[in-house]
């Protein structure tokens, strides 16, 4: 019996089970003020029976569709259902917040609760499962991946969620938000860019020089094990010492706190994935290919440019992707040493015990990481030479 139930797609079923569990858990928290504790409201308390039935029906649809393992249509329908759940959860919460606040005092807030977030995660798991099953049809896969998110963005701009506490935190800080978002991207961009250049050079050096290989990876590996908080902190002392010793450094903006240590830390963290992938990318090349190139009269530089670079590029860029996604998250810590970025909201929120302010920093970081990942995946795909993209 149990085996039959689980003969469907296990990823989807995991998502559905999580989605169903999250239904009775508190979706919204109504709080008298921004930082006070509040009362938790389940889905049944904020949605009418029709809304509740709809979500339940959609979950069951996902469950049933996961048993139709052949063909694109069931997979696409399953993805569509999960997208509807995602949008519906936001809409229900947004509308309920507006309704709840009508009868409350001016300082009252409505925060999103565990049940809501779990539903979002569950919906995403089902979307992910459907994506996997749509591997052969890129159009459908992209529709399934992005429709819900795009609709949510429109609703967000249209103000449907303005009464959620999260958006109220945003309301007073729009300018700051944009500024920190740009700064976050700037920190990551500079850190990864320099990390890429250094990482590629180190990777090439490691393949060319047997004696350099070991120490390079020893150091690169060690840096990855330093806790990020510690690394950011550790950089303060030497950098301020330097900037005091050489005032010129201070004039061009290099100080113990602020952007400089943050960028240096991000560079250091970017080094390992990029160096390692460059090394592996160059080392995995068929020696016969290089031998043929040299044997036909290519110079060392021509072999590098025409053979090694194009063949290693996909793997190198894959390392850059890892580094970028990782840096988007790590840059949050930069706020601690005065570099700003989206982490600023997180630490402000922590200081004020205002959960929604933390989310105002955390959610954009997640979204940014997802976008960077998608962009880098596209770049990797475009950089993969046609002859390597599978024989067909």
């Amino acid at each position, binding site marked *: 019996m149990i085996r039959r139930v689980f003969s469907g797609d296990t990823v989807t079923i995991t998502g559905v089970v999580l989605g169903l569990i999250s239904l009775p858990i508190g979706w919204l928290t109504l709080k008298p003020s921004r930082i006070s504790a509040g009362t938790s409201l389940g889905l049944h308390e904020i949605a009418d029976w029709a809304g509740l039935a709809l979500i339940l029906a959609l979950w069951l649809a996902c469950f049933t569709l996961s048993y139709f393992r052949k063909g694109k249509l069931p997979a696409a329908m399953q993805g569509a259902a999960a997208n509807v759940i995602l949008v519906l959860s936001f809409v229900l919460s947004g509308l309920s917040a507006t309704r709840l606040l009508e009868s409350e005092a001016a300082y009252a807030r409505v925060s999103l609760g565990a049940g809501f977030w779990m539903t979002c995660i569950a919906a995403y798991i089902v979307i992910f499962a459907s994506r996997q099953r749509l591997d052969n049809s890129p159009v459908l896969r992209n529709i399934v991946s992005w429709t819900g998110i795009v609709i949510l963005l429109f609703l967000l701009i249209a103000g449907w969620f303005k009464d959620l506490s999260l958006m109220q935190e945003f309301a007073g800080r729009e300018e700051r938000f944009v500024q920190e978002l740009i700064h976050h991207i700037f920190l990551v961009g500079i850190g990864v860019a320099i990390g890429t250049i250094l990482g590629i050079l180190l990777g090439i050096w490691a393949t060319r020089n047997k004696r350099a290989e070991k120490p390079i990876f020893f150091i690169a590996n060690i840096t990855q094990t330093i806790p990020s908080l510690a690394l950011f902190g550790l950089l303060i002392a030497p950098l301020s010492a330097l900037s005091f010793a050489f005032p010129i450094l201070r004039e061009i903006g290099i100080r113990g706190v602020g952007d400089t240590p943050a960028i240096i830390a991000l560079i250091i963290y970017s080094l390992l994935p990029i160096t390692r992938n460059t090394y592996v990318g160059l080392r995995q090349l068929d020696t*016969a290919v290089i031998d*043929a190139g040299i044997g*036909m*009269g290519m110079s060392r530089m*021509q072999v590098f440019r025409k053979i090694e670079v194009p063949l290693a590029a996909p793997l190198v860029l894959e390392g850059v992707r890892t580094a970028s996604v990782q840096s988007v998250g790590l840059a949050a810590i930069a706020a601690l040493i005065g570099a700003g970025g989206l982490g600023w909201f997180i630490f402000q929120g922590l200081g004020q015990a205002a959960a929604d302010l933390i989310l105002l920093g955390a959610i954009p970081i997640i979204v940014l990481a997802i976008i960077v990942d998608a962009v880098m995946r596209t770049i990797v795909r475009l950089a993969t030479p046609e*002859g390597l993209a599978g024989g067909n």
Partner: protein
Amino acid sequence: MIRLEKVTKRYGDTLAVNGLSIEINAGEVCVIIGPSGCGKTTTLRMINRLIEPTSGHIFIDGREIHIEKPEQLRRSIGYAIQSVGLFPHMTVAENIAIVPELLHWEKNRVSGRIEELLTLVGLDPVEYALKYPNQMSGGEAQRIGVARALAANPPILLMDEPFGAVDPLTRERLQAQFIRIQQELKKTIILVTHDLDEAIRLADRIAIMESGKLVQYDTPEAILAKPANKFVHDFVGTDRALKRLSRISIKGIVKHAPSVSINTPMKDVHSVCKQCRWVWVVDDDRRLIGWIDRAILPEASSVKEAVVRGNPDEIAVTNSATLREALSRMLGQGLKSIPVVDDSDHLVGEVALSDIEAATAETEA
């Protein structure tokens, strides 16, 4: 012409190549053969300076090769290797165009050359030019490897086990194609292999190496007939007499064959040949259709009735065959002599087992 003078390559304490001197004539195929580790590949790679000799001199057309820049030298020498080494991110056309582009050929000339070469190696240019290496079979890739080596029309070709990585049937086809192409192009080719049959089939001269030294350098016939020492003797094996047969054309021993037309009256058959037991039967166009066994002749009333019909592909050999093929056909058919036909199955003569023996004995002497 390529000349190596007392060339030595030392790796640490081991001598990979030890005082090797050899001269390779222009337009000849020199096959270097020997057990693994004998230094044959090292020797090959010293000729295009992928490896620099520890001592000694190498000359091409009288010029010492290290006068030129290695890249320049290599662009004038075709290079094909066992694992082919096609660039996986480039199409067949782009792979072939490598050396012409290094030499800054014009676009039109390059594309014309690609078409020419693909046709030469027996691949349809339209179908193959835009394929990627991972879309081809091993045999096709090998042919592209050869086409690429020939791209800039180099006078010299270095080949390191170019037919090593394919199945025996494909290898045989590639070898036949190699012989055909070489008859046409007359390149100076140095080919490294460990396959003796391949060496005998392809070589004008075979260089046998043992632990870095050249032990014998001669025509295949001479090496098979007179191994220089025990090593060569063992290396060529106990069936060297048989191997030698594959170097000798039947042309020299084809003799007149007794034959009758299918419409000949029975009584006339005896006058064709009084002693022989078998008489070949041809049609009015002199095309071979079978034979008559005279031991059972008296019982038959007509040639048509007495003839044992056979497919010329099975019972005969063509006049371009070697003694080895003729012998193997005879043994297979249980015949003491075998008819020889031209390309359109016309009977041109026959080869007798005793003549093959005699020919073998002659080269042995």
